[in-house]
Structure formats: C-alpha cells, structure tokens
C-alpha cells in the first residue's frame, strides 16, 4: 500500500487557486523530488500531504499510523524560548538518550546534544532538524527546501546524507528543492509542478521533457549534465557574461557559476 497519495487534489486560498487536480503517490522507500518555479505550489502540496491545509477539492490519503518526519523550510525559534538540542529531539515523543545520540550521528552532527538551538550555525541547525525528523524512524521523510542557507558543498553533503539514511532505514523521501542538479541525481522520480503536475518521471526523462524546459529553460538540462561531470552544456542565451567556452573547464566545474545559472533561470521563470 502506498504511504500517502493525493487524488485530484486542488487547493485554493481566498479564491486564488494554488493547486489544481494534482495526483501524487508515494510508495515505501522511494525518493521523490518536487521541482517547480517560485509560487508553483510546492510547499502548499507538502502542507496538504501532512494535513496542515484542507484541500478544496480532491483528497489526501495517508496510510493509517503513518509516521512522518518533517523538515520545514524555515524554523524560527524565538530567542525567549530556551531549548537544548537534546530537548528539541525529545519533543518528538519518548526517546532515550541513546536514540538522541544515534539520530544526531545519522544526521552528521554528533556531540551537539547539550548545545542551545539558538547557538547553532545554519548547517548544524538544518541537520538537527533532520535528526529530529529521523528520531522516530519515520516511514516518510518530508523535506521542504531543507538546504536553504547552506552553501553548495554543504547542501550536496546534506543530500548525500539523505540518500545514506534511505539506504540504511528504507524510509521514503519526499522533497522540494531549488537545487535541481544536486537533488535530481539522488531521486528515483521527479515531479515538475507549476500549479498542476507538468510532467513526472525519472530525472533524465523530466530534464528532457518540453514542459520542464519551458519552465526552467534549456540550461537546466545542462545543470543535470553538469552533475554528471559533462561540461559540454548549452548556456542560457541571455546569460550576462560569456565565460567558460574559451578555457574549456580544465579542472572540475565551477559551482559559483552554476549557481548563477540557476538564479537566472529562476528569474526568467517568475
């Protein structure tokens, strides 16, 4: 039985349709990534799946007793609220000290348990959120732009961790990300969303789909290729400066330039 499924799901806020007729099914153990431009309803879809918003039409089915580990896009802890990392992890329910240690280790931040949440760096904070999501061995891990505020190597490492966690625990993963090239390589399936499902399939299928290229421009195919260390990609036509072609990418790809590409594409998509 699938873990969670949306059937003909539509969502509207104040008369404004955010999602229409979305079908999505998640099976145990699979990694599914949702991509889409800003305002395409990615976060709304996640919120509908966890039951935080009621659909205006269609329905969401969750397997009875489904345990969800959720990593929100942003978590602001008010400075008036004292909270150690260990206490934060124990909020999830009855968990032992050993479980706290194991979850922090799995998330890649061992030894933080007695630190104050407010004293953590951005990367540590995101990993503690991941540890909290993992602590009760969820059937489904949901990550909403979980690497916001991390630099490129940091977020690449974060997603490698997610893959490792899936390999170890068999949890299904549903994530939303802007970092197409990093995320897509780790996904079994990619869903391209823009108010409705534009296209879906394996990363390679989606990256070459015309709907996807229409949203993100042809450069995205290059971004995926970039990840595969194939540097012969096509540059976005209105890219401000002409770089790269002359010196032929002697050693490895330039992450900063790649980020620049992505930003341009997002602006173009809005």
């Amino acid at each position, binding site marked *: 039985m699938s873990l969670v499924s949306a059937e003909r799901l539509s969502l509207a806020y104040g008369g404004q349709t955010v999602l229409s007729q979305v079908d999505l099914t998640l099976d145990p153990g699979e990694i599914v990534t949702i991509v889409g431009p800003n305002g395409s309803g990615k976060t709304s879809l996640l919120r509908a799946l966890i039951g935080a918003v009621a659909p205006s039409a269609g329905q969401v089915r969750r397997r009875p007793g489904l345990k969800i580990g959720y990593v929100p896009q942003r978590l602001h802890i*008010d400075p008036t*609220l*004292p909270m*150690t990392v260990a206490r934060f992890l124990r909020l999830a329910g009855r968990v032992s000290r050993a479980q706290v240690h194991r979850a922090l280790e799995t998330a890649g931040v061992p030894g933080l348990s007695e630190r104050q949440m407010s004293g953590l760096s951005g990367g540590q904070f995101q990993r503690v959120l991941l540890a909290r999501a993992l602590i009760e061995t969820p059937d489904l891990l949901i990550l909403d732009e979980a690497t916001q505020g991390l630099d490129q190597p940091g977020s690449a490492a974060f997603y490698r961790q997610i893959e490792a966690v899936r390999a170890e625990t068999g949890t299904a993963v549903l994530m939303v990300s802007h970092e197409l090239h990093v995320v897509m390589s780790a996904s079994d399936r990619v869903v391209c969303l823009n108010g409705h499902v534009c296209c879906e399939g394996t990363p390679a299928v989606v990256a070459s789909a015309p709907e996807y290229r229409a949203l993100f421009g042809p450069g995205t195919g290059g971004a995926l290729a970039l990840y595969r260390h194939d540097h012969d990609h096509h540059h976005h036509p209105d890219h401000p400066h002409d770089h790269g072609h002359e010196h032929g990418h002697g050693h490895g790809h330039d992450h900063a330039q790649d980020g620049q590409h992505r930003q341009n594409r997002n602006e173009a998509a809005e």
Partner: protein
Amino acid sequence: MMLDDFMLRATLAGIGVALAAAPLGCFVVWRRMAYFGDATAHAAILGVALSLALSVSVFAGALAVALIMALAVNALTGRGFAMDTLLGVLAHSALAFGLVAVSFLEGIRIDLMAYLFGDILAVSRLDLAVIWSGALAVVALIAWRWSALLTATLNTDLAFANGIDPRREQLVLTLALAITVAVAIKVVGVLLIAALLIIPAAAARPLARTPEAMAVIAALIGAGAAVLGLRAAYLFDTPAGPSIVCVAALAFLTTSLLGVGARRA
C-alpha cells in the same frame, strides 16, 4: 485556625496565582501573546460588571467573559486583521462596555477599583479555594498538553506532521488564560495580571536552558515575589498587588544583569 490570618491567606493566594501564571506566562512570552493576556484581563472587567448586575459570583462572570473574549480572538485571527489590531479592538471595547455597564449599577464604584488593582488582603477562605482549584486545573492542563503545546509553539507544520492540531493547542492555552485571569482578578486585579504572567517568565529566561526549567524558575520567582511583595507591603504600608509586581520586576532586573554578565564572561 491558621487561615484566620489575613496575611497568610493573602500569601497563599499570591502563591497560587503565581504557580498558574508561571507556565502559562512562559507560553505567552514564547508565542508573543503578551497583549493577549492584557486583552483577556480587560474583558474580565465587563464580566465583573455583569456578575455584579446579575448577582452571580464574580469568578463565574469574569471567567465567562474572559472565555468568550478568548474564543472570539481565536476564531477571528487570520481573517484580514492582524492579531494586535484585533486584540486592541476587542480589549478596549470590552473594557469600555464594562465601565459603562458598571456606571448603571449603584454604589459599587469603590469595588470596581478593587477589581482593577486587586485586593489581595481581602481574600477569603472561599476565594482561596477558588484560586487554588483554578491554579491546579491550569497547571494540570498545561502539564498534560506540554509536549504538544511546545511543538505547536515551535512550528505549526511540524505539529501537523506529528499529528498535533495546533489550533486545538491554541485553544488549550486560551482556556488556561481565561481561567487564570478569572481566579487572579480578585488577587492582583486586571491591570496587574498581565504583569504577573510575563515578568516572572521573562525573569526566568536568562537562568534557564530548557523550557521546563524556565517554567519552574518562573514559578519560583512568581511565588517569591508574592511572599516578599506582601511582606514589603506590610512593612512599608504600600499597596499589596503593586508591591508584588515591583518585587517581580526587581527579580527581572537582577536576572537580566546576571544574563548579560554571563554572556560577557
């Protein structure tokens, strides 16, 4: 009989209110609902007026109106008005209607002052029973929902993903706030209830590393302020309710300075 001593009754009443106000006050601080306490307390004046008019117990009247007020705010939030605007409208309207309603009643003007500023020295044995039952109910309610309340306070989506409905937890807080206001109105009065909610919690913050520690420390500071404030009021012949709040404020000043010192060190 020990409870014959009015100072002892006053002290016990102050401690009871402080115990309920401490954990609740922590949530009020964490959730930035400081004005919510004010609004509920102001609304309670209308309740006092109505209960005097209808000759029912002041506790019941204050509780009913505080509850209605709290539920109204709960229901109206997120419908086009910001929370602070909504609270401002409801709180001041309720206070104004309360004062107007009181003016129709004969000969209770002096009593009204008592409800604005409280009259802890006039606490009867029955009042003491009401205060302690209310306080214990609030503490039990918050202890029961503690983890869910904390999760909902941190992030509503996190709560939903864990099967917690944050709206229900908000309702629990609202209910607890209404009960606290209703039992505290006679002791510290409307104007000082919000102070007793917020100041001990704020004073506890620099000393605490976990939410539980903050609630416990806030309770100790609140109870200490009640004891010392009443003692000071007796010695220096100062008004009792404000004296309690003054001691709490001094505690806040002290712990804040300690906190700054600890950060420098």
